[in-house]
């Protein structure tokens, strides 16, 4: 131990390449880092055992995958006319789900930013709400709303909206906490009221990021809308589940192609909007 420590000290003095670290360099941190590395490797090994990671099983499984894929091809184009309606419905769910999420996340996010929140209690409460919203998977929300308002796309909108509000709100709160306080001070110093300071000094600083994230969330919501359809919350997901149950692999393939096409379109639209805004 002592030998290593002396060797390290010697290296530190004579090496041509030296580590430049955050805090004062301390030979002890070398051992600490080794400790951390061992800890991380242990976690990785533990997770691998827990999930039965195995190359051999994967190789064996390849046949199954190929078998299903071959049964899916070619996609069943005959069902296309019947599937157009549900596909559009999924787009509609994702649009209103995202809008609902944005509307909910703005007040929650403003309260969840320490530097502008009116009171610590409100700050803690909104952080708690946001964490809860993020912790519950969107399928669960969809299930709850299906039970509450019945089958169809509307519970889908509610489920998507509420669960993505958690992520957007947390992001908004964090982004506001990280803005440059200078312009905020300057506007406060003119006697501007709180809402004016938010509109003129806070909003412009976070708007590009918030818009980007909302658009990204829209893409995610489109995919989520297909999943929540499985619990009866409308859209293409409902069809996907039906064809899966009936082993109609070729119809399933068509639905996947449709989803791919829409995701690509959504992605293109949002990158156009993003470029405009920034």
């Amino acid at each position, binding site marked *: 131990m002592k030998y290593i420590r002396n060797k390290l000290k010697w290296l530190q003095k004579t090496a041509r390449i030296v580590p430049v670290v955050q805090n004062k360099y301390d030979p002890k941190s070398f051992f600490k880092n080794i400790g951390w590395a061992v800890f991380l490797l242990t976690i990785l090994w533990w997770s691998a055992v827990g999930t039965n990671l195995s190359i051999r099983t994967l190789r064996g499984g390849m046949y199954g995958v190929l078998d299903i894929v071959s049964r899916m091809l070619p996609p069943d184009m005959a069902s296309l006319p019947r599937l157009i309606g549900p596909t559009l419905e999924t787009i509609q769910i994702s649009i209103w789900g995202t809008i609902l999420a944005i509307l909910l996340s703005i007040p929650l996010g403003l309260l969840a930013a320490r530097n502008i929140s009116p009171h610590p209690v409100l700050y803690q409460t909104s952080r708690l709400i946001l964490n809860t919203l993020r912790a519950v998977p969107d399928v669960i929300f969809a299930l709850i709303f299906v039970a509450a308002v019945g089958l169809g796309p509307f519970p889908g909108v509610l489920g998507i909206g509420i669960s993505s509000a958690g992520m957007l709100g947390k992001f908004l709160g964090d982004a506001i906490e990280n803005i440059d306080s200078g*312009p905020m*001070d*300057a506007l406060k*110093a*003119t*006697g501007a*009221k709180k809402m004016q300071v938010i509109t003129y000094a806070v909003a412009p*600083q976070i*708007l590009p990021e918030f818009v980007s994230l909302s658009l990204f969330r829209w893409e995610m919501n489109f995919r989520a809308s297909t999943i929540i359809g499985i619990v009866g919350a409308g859209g293409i997901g409902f069809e996907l589940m039906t064809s899966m149950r009936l082993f109609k692999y070729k119809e399933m393939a068509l639905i996947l192609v449709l989803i791919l096409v829409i995701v690509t379109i959504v992605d293109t639209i949002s990158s156009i909007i993003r470029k405009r805004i920034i």
Partner: protein
Amino acid sequence: MITIKELSKTFNRSVHALNGVNLEIEQGEFTIILGPSGAGKSTLLRCINGLERPTGGEVFFNGLSVLDAKNLRFIRQKTGMIFQQFNLVKRLNVLQNVLCGRLAYNGVLTTCLKLFPREDVDLALHCLERVGLSDKIYNRADQLSGGQMQRVGIARALAQRPDIILADEPVASLDPRSADQILDVLLEINRADNITILVSLHFVHLIKRYAKRIVGLHEGKIVLDKIGNDLDDGDINIIYGDKKEYEIY
């Protein structure tokens, strides 16, 4: 017009930024607060418009206590502030930045929809003309040079129609030529509009040629109060101690 009594400010219970400051500033005066880095200049100015809450003492603006929450908005409305880092809203254009100086005079609803009375827009344009930026009205603030940004900062303060302007090291981030321009604009505003001006600086050479009141601040205390061109080496030693940091500039 500004009366400061026994003002103290302690950060984190241990950093004594201000230590019993007494200062009286008359209407129309041009005062320079001189002191090395960390002397407490920013803290002093920020206590005057309530951006910082003092831990002791009092500040009065035309007899109104700044510590009284119900006076605060009115006092801030009548107090312009200029910052070393300009503190413009980078993604707004020049005109919008100047109009920020009018927010306190207008309702929340209209201003949050970005609506302003025509007189306010005309006033903002006039203020931009005074600082020589009429040709940059629709440029985004982050496209300007440092000197131009600071002139927008001045226009924003002017748009408030203030009784006093507090300028916290307004030229510390600028090249000497822009620095001179900015100080000249401030002097001109003081002369033409009779607006009281309080500028903090930490370079000596910038001020010797102005025959203005100099208040020296050292470690949170006022150590000097005299007219600028009377300043001698002894006075400079008092303000800077043996730090002599001014010599490197």
